[in-house]
């Protein structure tokens, strides 16, 4: 599979979460993942995009960017916002940690991303924004060709 990519930008409205999931999953379909892998990828997009919307922009309007690159059977997914940023990334990554318990957040977003993807890299700067880079090898992809 030759290289391919896509870039998606949209305002931080929670109703855009569903369309972002579909876009990424439809794009990744060209690697022919199995249905479980596809569900995992959709879940990861949901978690990362929701984080950008509710934590990054805290309900204010901003732009969320999702970039998706394919090379061989490897998917790289980057979700970015120019929001408030994360002061303590290690703490944020702890299972069950949430800074917004009042919104009934589970604190499991980053844990889910880590579990469903092979690599996760979080970079953030206060009041500049957050970038979550996720990599996954699609194991079931038709090994070679087309």
């Amino acid at each position: 599979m030759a290289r391919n990519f896509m870039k998606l930008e949209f305002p931080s409205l929670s109703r855009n979460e569903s369309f972002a999931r579909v876009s990424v999953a439809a794009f990744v379909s060209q690697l022919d993942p199995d249905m479980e892998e596809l569900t995992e990828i959709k879940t990861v997009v949901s978690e990362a995009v929701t984080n950008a919307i509710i934590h990054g922009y805290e309900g204010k309007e901003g732009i969320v960017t999702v970039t998706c690159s394919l090379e061989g059977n490897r998917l790289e997914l980057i979700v970015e916002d120019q929001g408030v940023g994360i002061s303590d990334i290690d703490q944020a990554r702890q299972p069950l940690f949430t800074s917004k318990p009042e919104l009934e957040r589970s604190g499991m977003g980053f844990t889910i991303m880590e579990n469903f993807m092979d690599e996760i890299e979080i970079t953030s700067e206060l009041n500049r924004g957050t970038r979550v880079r996720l990599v996954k090898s699609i194991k079931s992809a038709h090994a070679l060709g087309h």
Partner: protein
Amino acid sequence: IGEIQRFLRDDSTVKISRSLKETARQIRRVRDELSKNMGRQPHINEVAEAMGMEPAEVVFAQEALRQPASIHETVFE
């Protein structure tokens, strides 16, 4: 009763939320059947082929089952 509710809610045009839900349920059945027969998770292309749809369209239809379009749909189904 579900049929009646569906009929009552129906206006002349078919809303995608409902029409796609039917397709999405079918996709779920096909997926279950394939994984039973093959003893593994089917790939998206296998489900798409069995449905006679493009893979991207399968992804689109699947999303219809995720969020109830209205409280009615949740209550009556």
